[in-house]
């Protein structure tokens, strides 16, 4: 059985239909890259999987937790699937360690001691064990994003959604974040990422999804999708992004 099941999902913003019937099943430990032009619906789809957007038709389930608009179902869904954002979104009034501890204590009612142990563990995992007491303004963009990854991991999700997580970073900081993601992939974490890092997608992902005008236009293993695009749209998109 698939870990994530996305079935006939449609999403409208007013008259504008941004998702026009999406079907994707994701197995555990798969790493999937969503590529496509801006406005193709890839970020919206990712946000739907975490319940940050509602859907108008179809269904999304993650390990049995279904996307429904009430807080109980949303919480159950979000405990299964974490999210990392383009803008990091660290909590500015808390240290890196406290950022990682907060939701454990609030949502899972973990004791402070256990939450701290988990936070140290997760910060170590992203190579920032020594930054436990640092506030966000003392951290580089890459470090902030790694704290955000640790914060999501501390909730022990079954899958992580990465929404253009390197797009706000200076070029020299991109690799330290991608290295962490690569490590997660190796450890068997299920990852769905919207990305513009084509080389990374080719190297790490099990499947690539090319989205175009609210539909899955092409889907397949990276060697196939990149080397042998079947549609003119993908051909053109790859031509634009890869010089």
């Amino acid at each position, binding site marked *: 059985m698939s870990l994530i099941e996305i079935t006939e999902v449609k999403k409208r913003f007013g008259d504008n239909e941004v998702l026009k019937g999406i079907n994707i099943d994701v197995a555990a430990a798969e790493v999937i890259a969503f590529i496509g032009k801006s406005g193709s619906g890839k970020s919206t789809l990712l946000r739907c999987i975490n319940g940050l957007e509602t859907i108008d038709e179809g269904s999304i389930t993650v390990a049995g937790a279904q996307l429904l608009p009430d807080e109980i179902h949303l919480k159950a869904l979000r405990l299964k699937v974490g*999210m990392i954002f383009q803008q990091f979104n660290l909590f500015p009034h808390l240290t890196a360690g406290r950022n990682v501890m907060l*939701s454990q204590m609030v949502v899972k009612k973990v004791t402070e001691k256990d939450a701290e142990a988990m936070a140290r563990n997760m910060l170590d995992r992203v190579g920032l064990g020594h930054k436990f007491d640092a506030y*966000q303004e003392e951290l580089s963009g890459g470090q902030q994003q790694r704290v955000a990854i640790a914060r999501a991991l501390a909730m022990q999700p079954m899958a992580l959604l990465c929404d253009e997580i390197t797009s706000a970073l200076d070029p020299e900081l991109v690799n330290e974040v991608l290295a962490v993601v690569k490590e997660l992939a190796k450890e068997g974490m299920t990852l769905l990422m919207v990305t513009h890092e084509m080389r990374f997608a080719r190297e790490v992902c099990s499947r690539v999804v090319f989205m175009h005008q609210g539909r899955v236009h092409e889907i397949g293993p990276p060697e196939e999708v990149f080397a042998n695009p079947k549609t003119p749209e993908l051909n053109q998109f790859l031509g634009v992004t890869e010089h």
Partner: protein
Amino acid sequence: MNYTFDFSSIGSYLPVLFNGILVTIELIAVGATFGVALGIFCAWARALGPIWLKPIVAGYVELIRNTPFLIQLFFIFFGLPSIGIQLTEMQGAMLTMVINLGAYSCEIVRAGIQATTKGQFEAGWSLGMTRFETFRYVVLIPSLQRIWPALSSQIVLVMLGSAVVSQIAAEDLSFAANFIQSRNFRAFEIYFLATAIYLALAITLRQLLRGLGWWLFPRKATR
């Protein structure tokens, strides 16, 4: 000008004056604590609360911000007994201050909440926090930090405005000054002294609030 200043005539009234200072401090302590708490609740309601609550809170805020403090005080102290709600002078004074500061601080705190980026809310939600938990643990403290100087000023204003409660015979610093003046007719001396005491109280209160800010917000919020 052949007025002879005589501060010594105040000496025998020092206990009255001292009691007045204590009452003013008590009024602002209660007024600020519950007023700001009410303000935070109303700010939450107006910015993020259920749709049915918004117009109610908006009505309260506009009513209070567009009427004089003195009339609010008279209404609560002299008006409410007609419908069976009898308050002591201190209760009436405190209640009016709480209601007054609640409305003004609502608007100040709301500005802080509405300056929060959407990403902060989404980060809280995506970690499984409910809307209320996200407000309480993620949004509130940085919001208060943003508006802390404005909120502090409003609290000082309410403390100074509390002089008006002497009008319903709450025995605050102004009441004490009026009382002493009516006995020894040394208006210059006693109001000079009262002015100096209010000034000292206001400066002390500002410093206390600044210290509280340092304690509440250990680091500068950058967004």
